C-alpha cells in the first residue's frame, strides 16, 4: 500500500512546495513515521491524508528553521503551516493527477535516459535507492548520485509542476512511455537465475504502466505498450533454462508461457487497435500476440507478422524493424527473399555491423543451406554482442554447424537414422 501511496503524497507535496528534493525527504520522513507508528496505533482511516499531513509538517518545520536562520519571516513557512492544517481535508481526485504530473516530470526529455529511469523508479515507483542500485548492478552511492543529479536538473530547469498543455502532452507522453519501456527492458534483458532482482524491474514497469493505463484509458499507445510488456514478459520462464542459457522463440517450451498474462495482453491490444491508426507500440504488441497465440512454433502466422512489420516499416525508418521484417519475409517467402532484404540493409551504418544483423544473416544463411556463410556470421555476431548468454548461444550455433560439416556423410546418415 505504501508503494502506491508514496507517489501520490510526493506529488501533492511537490505541487505545494515546488522543491523536489526537500519534498522527497519530507515524504521519506512521513513514511518512516508511518512504519514506526502504524503497527502500534493501527493504520489511520485515510492513510494518504495522514502521510500528506506529516510530510507537510516536516516541510513547514524545515522552512521555519531555514527562515529563522536567515532571520526573516518566510511567507512560505506561513503557507506551509496553513497547508499542514488544511491537509486533513484532502480528497481523492487531485492526487491521482499529481501522480501523473510526477511521472511526466521524472520522464522529462531534458534528462538523460539513465537519470529519468532512476528518478522515476525512486519518485513514482517508490523503490529505495538500494533496490534500484541492486537492479542496475552499481553501488548504492552511484545510484544516489544519479538520482540527486536528476533532481537537481529538474530543479534548475524550472519545469513547472503541472500537467503539460494539450499540444505538449503527446510529445511528453512519448518520453514517459520510452522511459517505462527502458525500465521493462532492463529487467527483461537480464538472464534470470541469480539476477532475480532485475526481474522486479519488469514487474515495476508493468505496475507503473497499469497505473498509467488507468489514468489515461483513451490513449491507445498506452494500452499498446502495456500489452507489449505483458505479451513479452509472459514468455520469461521459457526463454532461459536453469543455467541461464538463451532459448530462442522457436525452441521454447510453450507450456511455460504465462497464459493469464497473455489473455490480459490480448484483451488490451484487441480493445486498443480499433480505436484509430495504430502506433508502433500497438503494432509491436500485435506481433507479440501473434507469436503468443501459436500453439507450436510451426503454427506461427508469419504472413500476419510480415504485414505488421510492413506497417511498422512505413511508420518510421528503423533499422531494427527492417531486420525483423527480413526475418518475417524469409519465413513467408523463403530465405532468399530475406537475404535480399538484408543485403539492402548491409550498407546502413546504424545496423550493417550490428551483432543482430550478423545473427539474423547467419540464421537465414543456415535456412538457405549455406553452412559456411552461416558459421562465419554466427561468429561475427558472437564477437560483437554485449551479452554473455547471447555470445554463448551464437558460438554454440557456429560450433554445431561446424561439427556437422566435419562429419562424414556416413556418420550423418547414421545420426539421421538414430543409430
Amino acid at each position, binding site marked *: 500500500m505504501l508503494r502506491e501511496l508514496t507517489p501520490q503524497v510526493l506529488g501533492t507535496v511537490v505541487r505545494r512546495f515546488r522543491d523536489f528534493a526537500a519534498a522527497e525527504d519530507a515524504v521519506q520522513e512521513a513514511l518512516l513515521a508511518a512504519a514506526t507508528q502504524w503497527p502500534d496505533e493501527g493504520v489511520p482511516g485515510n492513510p494518504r491524508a495522514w502521510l500528506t499531513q506529516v510530510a507537510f509538517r516536516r516541510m513547514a518545520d524545515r522552512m521555519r528553521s531555514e527562515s529563522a536562520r536567515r532571520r526573516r519571516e518566510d511567507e512560505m513557512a506561513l503557507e506551509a503551516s496553513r497547508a499542514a492544517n488544511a491537509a486533513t481535508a484532502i480528497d481523492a481526485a487531485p492526487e491521482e493527477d499529481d501522480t501523473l504530473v510526477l511521472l511526466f516530470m521524472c520522464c522529462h526529455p531534458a534528462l*538523460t*535516459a*539513465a*537519470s529519468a529511469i532512476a528518478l522515476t523508479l525512486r519518485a513514482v515507483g517508490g523503490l529505495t535507492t538500494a533496490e534500484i542500485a541492486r537492479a*542496475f*548492478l*552499481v*553501488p548504492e*552511492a*552511484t*545510484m544516489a*548520485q*544519479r538520482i540527486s*543529479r536528476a533532481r537537481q536538473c529538474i530543479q534548475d530547469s524550472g519545469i513547472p509542476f503541472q500537467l503539460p498543455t494539450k499540444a505538449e502532452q503527446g510529445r511528453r507522453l512519448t518520453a514517459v512511455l520510452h522511459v517505462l519501456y527502458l525500465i521493462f*527492458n532492463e529487467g*527483461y*534483458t*537480464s*538472464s534470470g537465475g541469480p*539476477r532475480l532482482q*532485475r526481474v522486479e524491474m519488469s514487474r515495476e514497469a508493468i505496475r507503473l504502466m497499469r497505473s498509467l493505463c488507468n489514468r489515461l484509458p483513451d490513449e491507445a499507445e498506452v494500452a499498446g505498450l502495456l500489452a507489449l510488456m505483458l505479451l*513479452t514478459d509472459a514468455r520469461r520462464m521459457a*526463454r532461459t533454462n536453469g543455467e541461464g542459457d*538463451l532459448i*530462442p*522463440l*522457436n525452441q521454447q517450451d510453450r507450456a511455460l508461457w504465462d497464459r493469464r498474462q497473455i489473455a490480459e495482453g490480448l484483451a488490451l491490444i484487441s480493445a486498443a487497435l480499433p480505436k484509430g491508426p495504430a502506433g508502433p507500440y500497438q503494432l509491436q504488441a500485435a506481433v507479440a500476440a501473434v507469436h503468443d497465440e501459436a500453439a507450436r512454433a510451426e503454427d506461427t502466422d508469419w504472413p500476419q507478422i510480415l504485414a505488421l512489420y510492413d506497417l511498422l516499416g512505413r511508420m518510421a525508418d528503423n533499422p531494427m524493424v527492417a*531486420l*525483423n521484417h527480413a*526475418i518475417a519475409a524469409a519465413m513467408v517467402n523463403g530465405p532468399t527473399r530475406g537475404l535480399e532484404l538484408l543485403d539492402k540493409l548491409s550498407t546502413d551504418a546504424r545496423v550493417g555491423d550490428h551483432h*543482430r544483423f550478423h*545473427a*539474423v544473416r547467419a*540464421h537465414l544463411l543456415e535456412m538457405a543451406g549455406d553452412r559456411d556463410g552461416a558459421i562465419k556470421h554466427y561468429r561475427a555476431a558472437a564477437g560483437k*554482442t*554485449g*551479452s*554473455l*548468454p*547471447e*555470445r554463448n*548461444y551464437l558460438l554454440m550455433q557456429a560450433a554445431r554447424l561446424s561439427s556437422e560439416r566435419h562429419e562424414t556423410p556416413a556418420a550423418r546418415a547414421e545420426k539421421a537414422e538414430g543409430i
Partner: protein
Amino acid sequence: MKYILMMNADKRNFDAYAKWSKEDLQRNVAFMRAFNKELRDAGVFVATEGLGAPNEAKSVRAGGDGEPITDGVFPESKEFLAGYWIIDVESPEQAYNIAARASSAPGPGGTPGSMPIEVRRVLGGFADLGL
C-alpha cells in the same frame, strides 16, 4: 553499458614508478583520488582496484594431480595489469573520454603520463534476438 578501463604497464614501468620523487607520487595519488571522486559524482562509478607489484606475480596452472604449478619468471616486456575501473555509462564515446582522462594522470615532473588505457565492454544480459 558497463566498461572496464585497464591500465597496463610492463615491469620496467612498475620499477620506474617505485623510484618516482615524493612530489611526483603525491601529485599522481591526488589525481587518482580526484578522478575517482569525479566518477562517483557523475554517477558512473561501479568499481576500481589497484593491483600489487608484478615481482610478486605468479602464473599458476593445475598439474596432472590438480596440484598448483607456479611460475614467476616473466619476460621484461610482459604487460601487467596495474589497476582497473569499471564504469556504467551511456555510450562507448563516454567511456573513451573517461579513459583519456585516466590516461592524463601526471607522470614524473607533472607532465601527463599518457599511459595507454585498454577499454573493454563488460558483457551483460540479453534481449530477444527475434529468431
